[in-house]
């Protein structure tokens, strides 16, 4: 079975974020090992794993890295970075590009840069105790369409719905997209990937969606609105015009023009079935049209 969806919902009275994060991390490690074996030109790595002994005020979460085969103009392998940490009562998300190690802790050309000025850090509130939530972990090892996703909903409002981890292969370039959707009413997404055509990192801060004022529409493929760099590897102010290709999530994802929709379930007439995750319209396919009626393509019994 290439695709898996696991429910890790919690009552919350006897669970903590480190326990949840450690459980998610075990799935992530297994998937990541298999994904690295399958996608040899891009190495994924968990640089920092959740600390099971984190206290309520310790940072606890992930730093994920993807070392790409493609090098920067300086000849250094491009490293995509994603940090997702629970710090106190805030879930912090930080996408980035690493030019060199180690991370020097600031937005600098030497260590860590954001894909663009406004694809920097993002955060949202989180209630630690108690921690009741509905949550899912899903992954796929379908060649070319690999992904790993962790999503939760703490209540009906989008400042408590998030996708803390989304690692997926861009359908155009084949590079990894590292992304996360914060628990925020206004902020949709943070993503970083690599654009082959321009030789530049690219980022995103939203899914491409229809206006929310129209009919409920599911848009496929799920496309990220591209934020082209505003710093660029070109040092000269006379930066050349650059050409980019879009960022497309695997076919198991779609977007819907509803917010605060986590855990909504959609059954369009074509036989596909979709589960909404996060607070900004990302859909995860749970049943595929061509193998409908509970066949092998289905993630649900």
């Amino acid at each position, binding site marked *: 079975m290439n695709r898996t969806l696991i429910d890790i919902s919690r*009552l919350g009275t006897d669970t903590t974020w480190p326990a949840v994060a450690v459980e998610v991390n075990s799935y992530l490690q297994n998937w990541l090992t298999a994904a690295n074996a399958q996608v040899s030109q891009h190495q994924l790595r968990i640089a920092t794993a959740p600390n099971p002994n984190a206290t309520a005020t310790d940072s606890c979460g992930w730093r994920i890295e993807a070392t790409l085969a493609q090098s920067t103009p300086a000849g250094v392998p491009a490293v995509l970075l994603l940090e997702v940490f629970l710090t106190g009562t805030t879930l912090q998300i930080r996408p980035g590009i690493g030019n060199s190690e180690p991370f020097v802790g600031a937005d600098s050309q030497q260590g860590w840069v954001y894909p663009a000025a406004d694809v920097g850090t993002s955060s949202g509130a989180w209630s630690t105790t108690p921690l009741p939530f509905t949550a899912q972990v899903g992954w796929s090892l379908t060649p070319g369409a690999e992904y790993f996703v962790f999503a939760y909903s703490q209540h009906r409002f989008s400042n408590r719905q998030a996708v803390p981890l989304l690692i997926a292969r861009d359908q155009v370039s084949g590079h990894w997209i590292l992304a996360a959707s914060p628990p925020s009413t206004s902020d949709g997404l943070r993503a970083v990937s690599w654009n082959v055509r321009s030789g530049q990192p690219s980022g995103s801060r939203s899914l491409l969606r*229809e206006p929310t004022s129209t009919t409920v529409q599911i848009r496929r493929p799920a496309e990220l609105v591209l934020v082209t760099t505003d710093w660029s590897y070109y040092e000269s102010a006379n930066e050349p015009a*650059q050409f980019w290709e879009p960022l497309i999530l695997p076919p198991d994802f779609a977007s819907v023009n509803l917010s605060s929709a986590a855990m909504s379930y959609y*059954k369009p007439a074509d036989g596909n079935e979709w589960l909404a995750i996060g607070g900004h319209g990302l859909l995860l396919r749970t049943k595929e049209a061509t193998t409908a009626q509970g066949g092998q393509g289905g993630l649900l019994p």
Partner: protein
Amino acid sequence: MTYQVFCQVFPAGSWKWTSKDPSGVGMRLDGAFRAFAATVNALPGNADTPLSVIRSHADATANRWGYTWQLGHPIEPAHLWFHVESPTASGVTLQGDTQTYSSGQFGSAKASTFSSNTSNGGYGSYSNSVANSAGLAYIDSTITGATSIGAILLIAQDTTPGREFFCWALKTTGGNDELHRDCCHALYRSPGTKGWCSLAVFPRTSRQSYETVALHGYSGNRFGSLPPAISASLHSNGHQLRSGIAIGHYDLVLDPQGLLDSPPPLIQLPAPLFIGSTTIRGASTHFGKVTRPDGVMLQLGQRSLAHDIWLWLPSGTSHSQASPWMSVFALSYWRECNELHFISGLPPGGLPPVGLQLVTGTADFIRNFPPMSAAGTRQHPQQGTLLFSSAGGGDGGDGSGALARPTTGLLWPRGA
């Protein structure tokens, strides 16, 4: 040579939109469109969707000048037009002279609503139509204040079956920047949809408040204007241009046909055109050019308060038109520019075109299961089983592939 780009120059003093002169811009445009229509109408795939000319400059009887084209369709042919009023003694304001008046109209209607008479300056009348105010250039370089204005008419066309594309752009030359006007109108086919699509871009400038980006096409068998999702597809940093973006369907057009249940393909913008904003970077004016190893990008629009539009010419793009049509590369107006970001559409043959799916909320077809309503929760395909079945849901990690849940700390059922 199916993809061609060519142009013609109308110098200051002879450039005149309001003219039936066979060598004038109006009749030259008409001739180019008729030649394109004849070629693509002869293709087997276009038997149901022929293009034709309903009105041209030659039909003008008063102060209205422009064209009306028919988009053929087996169910519902449509008309598109671009008409400009010329100044008259009775005081029609000079086109483009003020920001509060536009005598240019880009419009659309179903062909069945057309009365072919000589009203409206020879252009006939419609019982039901939609029009957008759209400026052109100063319509006549013989008018005071515009005597230094000339123009170029640029045509890009593709007669490859399945990729039919006709685009005309008019760019004025000379004068100062405030007098400059550009306009662009393209007909094209979008993969997976039937009939012609249309895109018209009239950039907004400091002297012209009538910015128009008008998108038309067929949703199912109905012709109508479509909501351009161009803005949603572009990050608002002012230097991105976008091609090939899928722009969706107009659900009010689909609904009467009962098409809400089927996933319609997305209508896309034509691949050669890049639309977006150049407000903060790039060409300072209106004859921008970006030279690449594999081709050249030319600016059809201008740096605008709203949308700019550019055309891609792959290496080797040429033309087979007789003089006075000429190569666009022979023009001296183009200026190399930089700092723009062009985002292409999906690579050809990359991903299959996948449609939008419209999820209705009608009572007899509840397909949206909100998690927080009683009915939605009970029927929820994932949560419903977990919350209401006595077995408590999945296999708890026994590897059967069914839903797995931790064995402790469960929300429901308590103590199971």
